[in-house]
């Protein structure tokens, strides 16, 4: 990491946002820093901030620039940045571990072979590694409740596709740049569709509309297409056969 020189970096994003970036590449410390900084800032921000969020390695602050000048919010964020080393901040409290049954490949997830080839692996070897990977919710974004999960091994640092896949279904497990995304709804994507789950990240009809939180961890064990069809058929709550436990440590 060379973040010591250029980062953290505060820049305008759109007319009504400031982005505090902790790195320009995904890294464990930068992700921790973004989560912790946003959490701390939420408690102590000037009036005029409308909403906040985190992405993989940055925290975002949307505000009304006509009532809260850029310079004033920037000064408040700079002051908070100086209060500690955010790269060593702890992960959020109350994290959970999810195990979500997944069909790899088949017509359910037709780009497994392609992704495996780009990773220099046979499809079988790729599944062995993916189903054993324990990944963390690095951020939630793109679509409601939808997690970016990482990091997978360096062999899975494969690029996004040039052209978008017109649509993958809800519950699709897609892969690029050593990360998974678990799709919350049917959508076009440039990531490769390697697995399919029956997990619903966004449940607008349930009291808890958003299933996951940044810092949660996930494992995607492999099931057969037959087992998966049974899970789908009996799923009522959107968990898609997943189990969940508290992470203590």
């Amino acid at each position, binding site marked *: 990491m060379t973040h010591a020189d250029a980062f953290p970096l505060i820049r*305008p994003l759109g*007319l009504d946002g400031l*982005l505090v970036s902790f790195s320009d590449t995904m890294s464990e410390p930068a992700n921790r820093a973004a989560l912790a900084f946003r959490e701390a800032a939420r408690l102590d921000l000037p009036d005029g901030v*409308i909403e906040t969020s985190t*992405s993989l390695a940055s925290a*975002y602050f949307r505000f009304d620039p006509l009532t809260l000048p850029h310079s004033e919010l920037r000064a408040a964020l700079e002051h908070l940045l100086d209060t500690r080393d955010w790269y060593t901040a702890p992960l959020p409290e109350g994290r959970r571990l999810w195990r979500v049954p997944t069909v790899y490949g088949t017509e359910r997830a037709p780009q497994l072979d392609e992704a495996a080839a780009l990773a220099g692996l046979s499809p079988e070897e790729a599944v062995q590694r993916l189903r054993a990977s324990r990944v963390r919710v690095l951020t939630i974004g793109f679509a409601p409740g939808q997690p970016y999960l990482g990091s997978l091994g360096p062999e899975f640092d494969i690029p996004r596709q040039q052209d978008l896949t017109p649509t993958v279904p809800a519950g699709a497990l897609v892969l690029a740049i050593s990360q998974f995304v678990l799709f919350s709804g049917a959508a076009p994507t*440039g990531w490769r569709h390697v697995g399919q789950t029956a997990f619903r990240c*966004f449940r607008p009809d349930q009291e808890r509309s958003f299933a996951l939180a940044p810092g949660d961890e996930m494992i995607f064990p492999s099931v057969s297409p037959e087992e998966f069809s049974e899970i789908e058929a009996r799923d009522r709550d959107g968990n898609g056969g997943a189990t969940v436990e508290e992470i203590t440590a």
Partner: protein
Amino acid sequence: MSLIAHSIGPACTIQDQGRPGYLDQGLSRSGAADLLALHEGAALLGQRPDCAALEMAGFGGTFEATQEVNIALTGAPMQASIDGAQAAWNASHVLTGGQVLTVGAARQGVYGYLHLAGGIGTKPMLGSRSAHLTAKVGKTVAAGDLLPTGAGHGQAGFKIGSPDRFTGGTLRVIASVQTSLFSAATLDRLESTAFRRGARANRMGMQLDMEGQGFAAEGQLNILSEVITPGDIQMTGSGNPFILLPECQTTGGYPRIATVIPCDLPRAVQAPAGASLRFQFVSLEDALALQAAFEAELARLPGRVEPLVRDPHDIADLLSYQLVSGVISATDQGD
């Protein structure tokens, strides 16, 4: 009180100013594509601009009033009539019980709005009535659906002048965090290129087409996914710009070359397929001044409404009206 939609176009949704506060959970704000039109409708009815309205993409429908209700029509001008008599656009009208409002195809632009006195009173979800179709929040309004009115009677019989923003034009943009990933020559070319709105467009985003090569950043396919804001101009692998709109994703990994400033988004969304569009970079300071002027104009809209004087040609049964001493002259009007 409510309106019954007897028939309706394929892309009509209920929209207010959107649903801030869920960006951290991946849910973008949604809200009316043309916020100016939303404010104009509120001004015409004498109500607050946070009222929900029916957003009609390209085509409206037929709507029957169950009881007397005041309505307003704004945004992309569409063919409109009440019981067969032409109804002025950018105006508010009374619908008496049983009357039918017919809204046809857009004559210019894309998004027309039907406002009801008191606002559309559907149940809010996470603090807003805005549909967000890509997030599966709400749905398109279908034939047979009721549009209930909220509290408030409003006012009718007013019109408002509305700026033309329905044929494309120049969109002011500011640099964003990924602008520096593009070369100076590429940024120059962005400003000098004549774009056309492409066929792919919805409330998530609109694709632009152009002659010549696409726009690419260094390391385009492997940059870190980062926060998106509506108005961002995203370059996908094909090099065609997409302007991201109210139902856009909240983060994304395709680089954004610049951001259309909020006060120019009504012009962007209302550009119909094939309309020409250009981009012009402005400084953050200039953009803030433009936005301040726009918001000041929104605040002045309630004072800009004028009484709607009906054109006699639009009155279906002129002979039944009691005019001056019962005498009707076809020649001495308007002197």
